[in-house]
């Protein structure tokens, strides 16, 4: 096994446009330097798109900021070099650095709203780039800016130029940021999680735009993301990072098809594939936590969590990056690369018993809710059975959170009914519900950092729920139940004495799950419980939910925008758009044709990492309309690729039934819907 440096490899080809050689970055902490990036190497060739993948805290964003020399007061490069076009970036200062920033190297940020100056018009911010980099005069700069807005496919460029950032949507803001970065035709574009803050269908549009940047503009890209699927769709090469180190490098094809590091494999195993569901191929999460930056383990950082860990070898000394396939530039930081059976199928799950689905427990009939000008829910009709998982899918503004709040009694509906085992809930506020009802209908919240009160211990918060819901009164039995619940969510018992700030995001979410199940509820509403969690942690919490549900026979209402997770764990799906249900049915019915056009677009927007699947591209035009001004007729008509002018924008669509459980609300004729091609297809090698 040869240890080849990136340099020797690169010398064999042309000069890379960006090179990181043994780059090490550290932050000044209270008791000395804390390493953030260790011995990082990268060779980015002109016109190439390189993805930097890892979970939160792995150091990927730090590298981008180091390249731009914007590490802030506390961070500094403590070793290695960064070369741009062969010249030392770190040695540049003053005028030279200024002309490179925004000129030769440009950056796109994670949160577009925060990255734009709220007091300047878009136009003013855009024209600065050519004015200061090419000394262009104002009018010419404005014309160039508008042209660029067209090229990033922004309609109505003139109005956008005169607007302030808060007056345009998130997707439009990000296009503006991209346009601003491309205005001076940079040689290198750094993208730091550019789509994380955006809705799924909007994200698909941006991803498509980014993908074409290198072909249209010839720009090299460094694409930073936590989403393997996005990297596969946009990049040529990929570096997987863990705890500040690169653990695997190679072309997208070679890494994704033949991964050679346990962490990479763990990441893949924790992502649901389009064909799998909870019974056939369970998600396998990576046990444990990433090491704290101050206390990394000796030897291989991933060792403590690795199934192939061998004591004495893997923790003896730092593991170098070793080449596996020089022609593809594929390297891995694993000592046991030749010993592990990489292609073995993952061990079959512990015989997942299909939960028996019982009678209808929750019946929603024509539920509607209007706020002053906004129709949040319009005629919702569906039901849920005992032991079933029903997923409610939709993007922002679709009304799913409003529905959850009506269900929980925090707000009341205007019309329609929600029937929970005989009790009418639609207009019953939580303050008027009896203890039994409250106990049987509980909620898991989205934001793990807010879901627990930071001032009380974990145990006391769970105990409060137990006592308040009247499950148990006797103190010692309450205590016991708290510990039992911690066991149920696979947390150590001594967590009961800890405060939330001592727990990680995933652990806090588990406590949230424990809290929801404290009273043996019959229905649990989970409102986007996974969105704020890292990929591998998502897998763990998902499996936990499935496990508990199976054991307790609870009905789970799973609200999400992430179709791949939904596909994995739900039995039935309800797709919402702007307050109305567009399609509902069993999972496999919704995921295969016939599709509602919106469902088709949603499915196509899901990034897939698995090389075995090809995806048909369906892009939507325009933005999600504001809920205060819904279009007449079908709410989706403004963006629908199949729209029939005169019908879809005038009359509400009829509900067509394709089976006992499968319904689609669409004007398209039945034959056309049935003739749709599937979005996902298995690719034979």
């Amino acid at each position: 096994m040869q240890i080849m440096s990136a340099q020797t490899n690169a010398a064999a080809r042309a000069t890379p446009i960006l090179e990181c050689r043994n780059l090490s970055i550290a932050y000044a902490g209270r008791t000395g330097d804390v390493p953030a990036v260790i011995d990082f190497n990268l060779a980015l060739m002109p016109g190439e798109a390189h993805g930097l993948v890892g979970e939160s805290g792995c150091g990927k964003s730090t590298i981008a900021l180091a390249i731009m020399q914007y590490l802030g007061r506390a961070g500094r490069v403590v070793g290695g070099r960064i070369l741009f076009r062969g010249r030392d970036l770190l040695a540049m200062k003053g005028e030279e650095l200024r002309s490179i920033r925004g000129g030769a190297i440009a950056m796109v940020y994670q949160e577009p709203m925060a990255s734009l100056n709220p007091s300047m018009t878009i136009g003013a911010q855009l024209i600065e780039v050519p004015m200061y980099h090419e000394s262009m005069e104002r009018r010419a700069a404005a014309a160039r800016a508008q042209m660029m807005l067209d090229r990033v496919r922004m309609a109505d460029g003139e109005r956008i130029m005169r607007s302030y950032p808060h007056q345009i949507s998130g997707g439009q803001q990000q296009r503006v940021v991209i346009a601003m970065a491309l205005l001076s035709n940079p040689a290198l574009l750094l993208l730091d999680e550019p789509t994380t803050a955006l809705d799924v269908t909007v994200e698909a549009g941006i991803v498509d735009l980014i993908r074409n940047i290198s072909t249209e503009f010839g720009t090299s890209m460094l694409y930073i993301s936590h989403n393997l699927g996005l990297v596969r769709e946009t990049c040529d090469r990929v570096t997987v990072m863990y705890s500040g180190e690169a653990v695997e490098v190679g072309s997208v094809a070679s890494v994704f098809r033949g991964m050679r590091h346990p962490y990479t494999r763990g990441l893949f195993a924790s992502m649901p594939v389009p064909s799998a569901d909870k019974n056939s191929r369970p998600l396998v999460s990576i046990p444990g936590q990433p090491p704290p930056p101050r206390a990394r383990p000796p030897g291989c950082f991933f060792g403590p969590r690795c199934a192939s860990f061998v004591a004495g070898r893997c923790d003896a000394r730092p593991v170098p990056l070793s080449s596996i396939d020089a022609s593809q530039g594929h390297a891995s930081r694993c000592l046991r690369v030749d010993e592990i059976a990489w292609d073995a199928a993952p061990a079959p799950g512990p015989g997942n018993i299909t939960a028996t689905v019982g009678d209808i427990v929750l019946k929603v009939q024509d539920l509607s809710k209007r706020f002053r000008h906004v129709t949040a829910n319009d005629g919702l009709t569906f039901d849920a059975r005992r032991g079933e998982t029903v997923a409610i899918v939709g993007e922002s503004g679709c009304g799913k959170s409003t529905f959850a709040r009506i269900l929980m009694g925090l707000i009341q509906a205007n019309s329609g009914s929600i029937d929970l085992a005989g009790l009418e809930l639609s207009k019953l506020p939580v303050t008027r519900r009896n203890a039994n009802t409250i106990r049987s209908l509980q909620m898991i919240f989205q934001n793990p950092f807010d879901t627990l009160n930071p001032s009380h211990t974990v145990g006391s918060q769970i105990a409060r729920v137990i006592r308040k819901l009247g499950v148990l009164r006797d103190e010692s039995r309450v205590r016991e139940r708290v510990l039992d619940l911690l066991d149920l969510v696979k947390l150590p018992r001594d967590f009961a004495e800890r405060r939330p700030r001592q727990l990680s995001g995933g652990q806090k979410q588990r406590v949230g799950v424990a809290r929801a199940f404290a009273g043996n509820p019959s229905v649990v509403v989970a409102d986007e419980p996974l969105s704020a969690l890292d990929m591998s942690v998502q897998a763990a919490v998902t499996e936990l939910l499935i496990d508990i549900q199976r054991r307790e026979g609870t009905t789970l209402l799973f609200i999400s925008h992430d179709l791949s997770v939904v596909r994995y764990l739900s039995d039935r799906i309800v797709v919402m758009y702007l307050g109305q249900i567009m399609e509902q049915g069993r999972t496999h019915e919704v995921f295969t044709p016939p599709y509602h056009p919106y469902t088709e677009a949603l499915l196509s927007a899901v990034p897939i990492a698995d090389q075995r699947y090809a995806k048909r591209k369906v892009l939507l035009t325009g933005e999600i309309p504001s809920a205060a001004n819904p279009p007449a007729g079908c709410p989706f008509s403004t963006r629908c690729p199949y729209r029939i002018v005169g019908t879809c924008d005038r009359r509400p669509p009829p509900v067509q039934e394709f089976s006992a459980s499968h319904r689609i609300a669409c004007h398209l004729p039945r034959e056309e819907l049935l003739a749709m091609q599937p979005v996902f297809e298995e690719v034979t090698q």
Partner: protein
Amino acid sequence: MGNLIVRRVTQMLLIMLTVSLLLFAIFDSDQFREKAAVAELGGFGVATLSADDYHEWLEKKGLNEPFLARYGRWLESVLHGDMGQSIEKDIAVSVLLKESLTNTGILAFFVFLIMIPVSLTLGVLAGMNTGSPLDRVISIVAVLTTSIPQIATAVLLTVILALGLGWVPTKSAMADGWSFRGLPLLTLLLYDIGYLVRMTRAAMTEVMASQYIRTAVLKGLPYRRVILRHALRNALIVPVTLIFLELNGLLSQVVVVEVFFQYAGFGRMLFDAANFGDLQVLQAATLVAVCVAVGSQLLSDAAYVFLNPRVRFT
């Protein structure tokens, strides 16, 4: 934006109405009535007054009519500019008000003239380079000046500049020349500058740490432009609104400063009237003070809406 302004103005009018009613009720209360009697008839005179005579006196003064009627009459006279007579100084209240407001106005004018450029510059400089030696010095001086109450500042300045060095007179003889305004002005300035510097620095620090400044810097803009065009525009929103509110603060500060230096301004007039029991003066002065305070709040809110595009254009 227009909507917001209208709502705010209506709110302010409502507040003014409530306040004027409150004020009238307070000054109409028994304690104050007694005070008025004492002031006019002398303490001894009141003590020897029998209950009937007291009521007769009240009748004569028109103080026995129903509340709302008197309130209405009072409001009417005020709006016409007639606010009564000062018992102590035996001149019309409006004349007294005009004199004292002019004097305080001169002080206020110079305070604003000097305070605004100095504080904004120092605050911006400190915020731009948070943690630098310049910032440390500016911050420490600002904390010191805002920690020393104006009563103490007045003392220290008097001791050093007047008694020690003899540069300015200790009391404001209200004579010709302007040197007697020096100490009151300096006392006011020290505190106000310190306060505004701290607020401006805090706003500037926050803006400099924001993501849009990062965008501007990484766009390759010259540093000067980043500061002048990108940062200041956002950082100065709050300090500008605070400057309008300073009018309100000044009214409080002049009470103690003018009394200490015997400066014939609004604050001293208010204080003397309260001490003496010169009720009409006190009432009128309070009303004016509230007007200025409410007006300054309104201006401040308007400035905020005007300067902040997020609120101005929804």
